[in-house]
């Protein structure tokens, strides 16, 4: 709700600033010391859990991130332990097969990373996470083309459980992940609708060219931790445009990796709802 309001305010701002202009500019920025970046996910069920290790680079480096190879990654829950295996075809990626490991709700998982050579004067990094229980169950979804914003809106029909919940929503069309970048991901807190039934809450917005009648659409919904919700929100704030009227000072999102590393290690389960889009000018509701 608040992001929606802020976006409206920014729209208002853009209408007001009739004489404003934007242009690219050249600017010299110093480069800070290199840091490790950890992007890690634990999943239950059939999905393999994986970790990606890269490093930071100069802001205008304009190259893919440098992959960190030959690291040792271990996972334990206090009783059992697992080892991540490097993925040969994707340097910097380490995975555990679904048949080796499945994340369970309520357990605390510790991640240990040991590098073969130091980054930022450190070779050892740690993190921990827990997987919230999957409390959301999708009764139905609605897909509607909204002519006022010229986009597809995806509506959720589900009950929010009583108590604090944080959600992550993703979209796939014909099995391809559409929300494949931070700005596209939708994270929600149930602050304004705790314990209520959601009669068509808009949870995703797709560009008009991303969905066509006849396509297979899939909505993924996950319960996530508050820390991960704050992290994604923080990244979305920083990747968005800023202006002196509405934006606070830029700041780095708070990750959960030790040793000064960036990134986040998280765990969540996902429920999906999959439909074939019918051609229709009105809202399509799928049960």
């Amino acid at each position, binding site marked *: 709700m608040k992001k929606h*309001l802020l976006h409206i305010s920014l729209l208002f701002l853009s209408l007001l600033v009739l004489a404003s202009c934007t242009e690219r500019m*050249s600017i010299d920025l110093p480069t800070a010391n290199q840091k490790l970046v950890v992007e890690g996910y634990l999943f239950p069920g059939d999905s393999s859990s994986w970790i990606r290790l890269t490093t*930071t680079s100069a802001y205008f480096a*304009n190259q893919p991130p440098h992959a960190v190879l030959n690291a040792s990654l271990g996972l334990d829950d206090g009783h059992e332990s697992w080892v991540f295996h490097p993925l040969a075809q994707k340097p910097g990626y380490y995975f555990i097969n679904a048949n080796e490991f499945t994340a369970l709700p309520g357990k605390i998982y510790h991640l240990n990373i040991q590098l073969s050579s130091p980054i930022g004067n450190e070779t050892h990094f740690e993190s921990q996470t827990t997987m919230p229980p999957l409390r959301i169950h999708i009764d139905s979804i609605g897909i509607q083309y909204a002519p006022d914003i010229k986009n597809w809106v995806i509506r959720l029909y589900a009950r929010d459980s009583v108590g604090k919940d944080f959600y992550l929503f993703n979209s796939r069309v014909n099995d391809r992940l559409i929300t494949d970048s*931070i700005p596209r991901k939708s994270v929600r807190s149930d602050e304004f609708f705790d314990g209520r039934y959601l009669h068509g809450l808009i949870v995703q917005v797709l560009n008009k060219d991303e969905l066509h009648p006849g396509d297979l659409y899939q909505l993924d919904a996950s319960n996530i931790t508050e820390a991960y919700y704050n992290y*994604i929100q923080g*990244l979305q704030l920083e990747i968005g445009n800023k202006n*002196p*009227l509405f934006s606070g000072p830029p*700041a780095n999102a708070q990750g959960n990796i030790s040793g000064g590393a960036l990134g986040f290690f998280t765990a969540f389960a996902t429920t999906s709802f999959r439909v074939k889009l019918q051609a229709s000018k009105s809202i399509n509701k799928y049960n």
Partner: protein
Amino acid sequence: MRNRCLIIFLCLIIASVELHAQTTKLFTIDGQIKDQSSGESLAGATVYVQEPSSGTISNAYGFYSLSIPAGIYHVQISYIGYQSKLILLPLVSDTTLNIRLNIQQSQLREVEIKSGESHENIVRPLMSVHKMEMSSIEKIPSFLGEVDLVKALELLPGVKFVAEGSSGFSVRGGGSDQNLMLLDEATVYNAGHLMGFFSVFNSDAVTSVTLYKGDLPPAYGGRLSSLVEVRMKEGNARSYHANGGIGLISSRLQFEGPIKKDKSSFMISGRRTYADLFLRLSSNKKINSNRLYFYDLNTKLNLSINKNNHLFLSGYFGKDVFKNDFFQMNWGNSTGTLRWNHLFSKKLFANVSFVVSQFNYNLGLPATNPRAFSWQSSLSDKNFRSSFDWFLNPKNKLNFGFSVIHHDFFPGKIIGTGQESVIDEYRLPDNYALESAFYIGNEQKVTGHLTLKYGLRVSIFNNLGPATIYHFDTAYSITDSVVKNGSGIYHTYWSLEPRMGIIYQLNGISSLKASYTRNVQYIQKAQNSTAGNPLDIWFPANPNIKPQIGDQVALGYYRDSPKGNFETSLETYYKWTKNAIDFKDHADLLLNKYLDSELRIGRAYGYGIEFMLKKKQGKLSGWLSYTYSRSFRQIAGINAGKIYPAPYDRPNDLSLVLNFELNPRLNLGLTWVYLTGQAVTFPESRFVYGGSILPVYSSRNAFRLPDYHRLDLSLNWKLKQKKGKKIAQSLNFSIYNVYNRKNPWVINFENDPDVPNSTYAEMTYLFGILPTVTYNFHF
């Protein structure tokens, strides 16, 4: 410590009263100083009696009083922009001497300036204060044709805009919520139209503005950095007049005149933008359905009941509206002041005021939208205050009084009205508070060279119920809450706020001044953006949030040219703040009932040196001001607890303001401003996460935007007045940003959508070269 301060102060006051009791028989000259043609009171006029070298200054309502022994005196009355008067007065008894001054004619040449006339800044026991008349502000090149007193204040030393196009400003490094803005004693909480591009002060309705930079008089408090006193015109008590203008953005009209000649008068002034009126002419529904405008309405009634009693009633109503088929938003201020001036005696003047003010905003999606909602918020004040000026004797002028403000904070409520709306109603609880103060102050002329100015303000802040107080642990997580039922006081803060100054007059044209002030701020704005916006909310001190306490010491040297045509001043200051407030990274300030947990508390400090050279008279007039200043914060939980530059830290600030009278009908104006670029936070590296390239930011405010500079020009052309016609017309041509400098408003760092793995920097600048023309009339 607080008790010791109080005792010392009381001893000083008692000594002054004793001195009064021991003097020889004196007679009192008192009266009102007014404008000859309009009857407007002139506040701050100098009344100087040459023979005993004694003088005084008229108070905020034009009243003065001066007690001297019997004798024959030359009494000189002067006021900036007006012809001085010299009166030979035989004084044998108490005498009422009402003075009317004429506005200075523009063809007055430098050689005609009387000596000793305008050394007010030397002798006046005030420092860090600037007073500007609207007549001089109107000569400054204007932005889009709108004369704006806030933008004029930003040309003074120590005052900077917070962002281009914003009505917020920073005084000596402080935040925009640290400025107390009063319009006829009513607080104006959000002084900006159109997101701050224009201020709410209609130049036709205002007579003058006075800025106090930290050294607030004891009668005022509640803000750390400044007091901006805007006075509305009282209305011409002698004849009817109208003023108006048609500009690029807005049109304005003002009427004033007597209700009963020399006894009562009225003033009504309105201004409205009209771009939306043209939009309605479009046949395109998407264009003609837009509503975008703002308006101001200023009204004043002025009633002289008898020679000892005077009533004023003034009001301001202003609003901004933006509305179309998809979205609607409006915000605005309204204020009302009822004031009674009473003369108890020739030496004791009282002012009693009842003031109300409100700021509110509403926004949402229209009812036709299935996702329709409405979001409202407001802040209301009711203030009762009383102040007394006691012209004790030629060497002592006491002022004392009290003020009580009831604050009603309504932080916000959202109601879902559309059939697809997710929420029914979400409301943040109201907050109530009482902010009271008692004060006493004295200006004491110790010797012919030395004047002391001292005062004490005792402020009290009560939180009133009902309320819910949340408690937090050291990680700012909520641990529990306490509900306070009923409307009683559940928490109190109180403070002593001493105000002290010394003025040592070296000779007739130079003086040294020093001051110390403590100010306490109990309410502040939840705003972490640089410029602020109408959605910002104010919140009070409470058991979780201590009041901010600011101290300032200042030292100044003032020198005039012998004829008084040039004024120079050099001031240096140091200020420090305890319990300084900032907001955590990614603070959630909108509709957050746990707002207290978003704050981080620490300290702030700043220092600077301010130079000003002013030419007051002649064909060429204006000023040059230069400030070097720094402003820093150190807040636990922000920037890893390390010191960082405040958002308003801009070390170099230079303003050149010139006005050249080519001939009686043609006037050229020039403004050139230069400021060090704003302190900002830029990325120092980048990383990839979740399929996106993301910046890794430096420590807070470690970088700077490019320096800001801009030249504005204006030409004011008075059209020939036809014989026998009362109407006077003029055209004003202004060019903002003459050399089209692209001053960055913000620099963003973007992912390049066309080139994989690529990023770039993008600058947004607001205004290139902007010419405007405004037609003005007066009759």
